[in-house]
């Protein structure tokens, strides 16, 4: 926590265009999924990206993870552009940057039991030398995400959605990352399970000084978890600021529209809640 104000990730005017083929002549046209987007995320903080489906959030996340090359622009991780780094260096960074998806099946291989899911990254990145060490570390990860040790021998389909998401989070943490992209991690979960996962994410962030890029369309969740918010519309960031800025002093029409869409539950609950 003493490393505040140092950006872990800086995104400088990145653009991503995809070729799409349409029309009778099959002429190639380009779809701009992300358009000259810039932001940085301080170490240990959470930047939320909100916007409607198709606004470019996931494309942005893939570029931030160095899993997709931008068409234009630069991404600096720990102050150095991906493009300046050697292949070997970038491979090592794969360990430092992890992702958790909305659907835990996307981050978990159904044919791998939990032990294999949690130790695979340790083996690839040589983080634990002996099987005993890996087993020890896997058990520790399960404790961190409040899952029983017997889970190690079980398969993803044997768990509930919330439990699978906790396993996906444990897998992401198994390689000691600094930066975690959370792409709608609680959107498929019931509220009672969502609160468990949110508590977990918050605790893990504190314990490990994790930096989060948190993608969500749920503004209640964003206002609870994020430090800063970037509002995306049609591939561009139309407004960015602290949670207080965005929620109390929105400048753009689109942001206001998003905020008005928030269910009125707090209003109705009224004084029941000490703010």
């Amino acid at each position, binding site marked *: 926590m003493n490393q505040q104000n140092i950006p872990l990730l800086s995104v400088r005017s990145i653009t991503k265009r995809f070729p799409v083929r349409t029309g009778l002549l099959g002429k190639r046209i380009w779809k701009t999924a992300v358009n000259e987007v810039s932001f940085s995320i301080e170490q240990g903080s959470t930047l939320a990206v909100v916007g409607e489906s198709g606004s470019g959030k996931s494309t942005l996340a893939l570029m931030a993870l160095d899993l997709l090359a931008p068409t234009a622009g630069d991404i600096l991780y720990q102050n150095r552009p991906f493009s300046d780094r050697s292949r070997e260096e970038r491979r090592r960074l794969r360990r430092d940057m992890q992702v958790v998806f909305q659907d835990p099946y996307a981050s978990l291989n159904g044919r791998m039991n939990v032990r294999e899911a949690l130790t695979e990254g340790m083996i690839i990145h040589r983080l634990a030398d002996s099987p005993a060490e890996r087993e020890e570390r896997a058990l520790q990860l399960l404790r961190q995400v409040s899952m029983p040790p017997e889970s190690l021998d079980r398969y993803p389909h044997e768990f509930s959605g919330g439990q699978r998401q906790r396993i996906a989070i444990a897998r992401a943490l198994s390689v000691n990352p600094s930066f975690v992209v959370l792409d709608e991690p609680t959107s498929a979960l019931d*509220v*009672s399970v969502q609160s468990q996962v949110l*508590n977990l994410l918050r605790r893990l962030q504190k314990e490990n000084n994790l930096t989060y890029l948190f993608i969500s369309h749920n503004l209640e969740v964003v*206002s609870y978890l994020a430090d800063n918010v970037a509002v995306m519309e049609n591939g561009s960031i139309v407004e960015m600021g602290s949670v207080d800025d965005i929620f109390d002093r929105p400048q753009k029409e689109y942001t206001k529209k998003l905020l008005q869409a928030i269910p009125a539950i707090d*209003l109705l609950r009224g004084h029941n809640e000490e703010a």
Partner: protein
Amino acid sequence: MHSPILKVQNLHTWFETPTGTARAVDGVNFELYQGETLAIVGESGSGKSITALSLMQLVPEPAGYIEKGSIFYKNRDLLDLTWEEMRALRGKDIAMIFQEPMTSLNPVLTVEKQIVEAMQVHGTATGAEARKRAVDMLNKVGIRSPQQVVRQFPHELSGGMRQRVMIAIALSNNPQILLADEPTTALDVTVQAQILDLLASLQKELGMSMLLITHDLGIVARVAQRCCVMYAGQIVEEAPTSELLKNPQHPYTRGLLASLPSRARRGQELYTLEGVVPPPTRWPKGCRFALRCPNRMDICKNVLPGETALSPQRRVSCHLYNSDSAEAAVPLENPS
């Protein structure tokens, strides 16, 4: 309030499954009043959709069946109607919309054909009159270029537009009751807000009654005057929405509300409900929430609590409120 238009009593809808009888809906009671929006809110698997499908008598057969209960509509028990009588009522008196419009829209028919057919089946309108009414309906659900949309196929429309088309079809026969099962769950938040506001205004304009099924308490807050909280196949609490949100009584409702993230709770640990819902083939003998309940008493493990009326408009099924069984005095502290 006025008289109930729909009165559901002791409804049980079960499924035969390889692991036993799944008692998905297991003793549900509620009344829907003329011109109101009543929400049924609950987490996935609590039996909300099966309740709605039971009202329409569209429970997936042969595994599923209505074991017992009554569904009174206009002084008749729908469960006593013949299949033909029920078919005449379905889509006319009682219409239904779903989370995923594609499951109820026909992919190979134009929008016009589908609305016209819905009206023809029930003799509401035919021919040129029906086609004109189709355009009117699309106008009503906020589609700006209805002349163009009538000629389109479902896959040519965005999710929000498809949902509007499904609402237009459902409302084309002026139903008395609209059952809306998670009608906005698959939509973006701004579209979701538009559709909810649309449903609320149509409901007022047409004077129909709406049963809104959702897992989202925020949606309940936005559109429903009253709310039933469903857990494990039963309704555990019923109250006017504002009272329910301000002053929840059942420990499950309290827990749900306390577990919601919000800006006011930044930096705080959210409340969590321990454990999971038991499978519907093996409901516990006593209160179905007992294993997860922070206020559990001895009686809860063995005796299913009956309903206690807290006021003419409020009821709760919990031993804490039953004067014969309560050890603790009410009200409880909210979990935080």
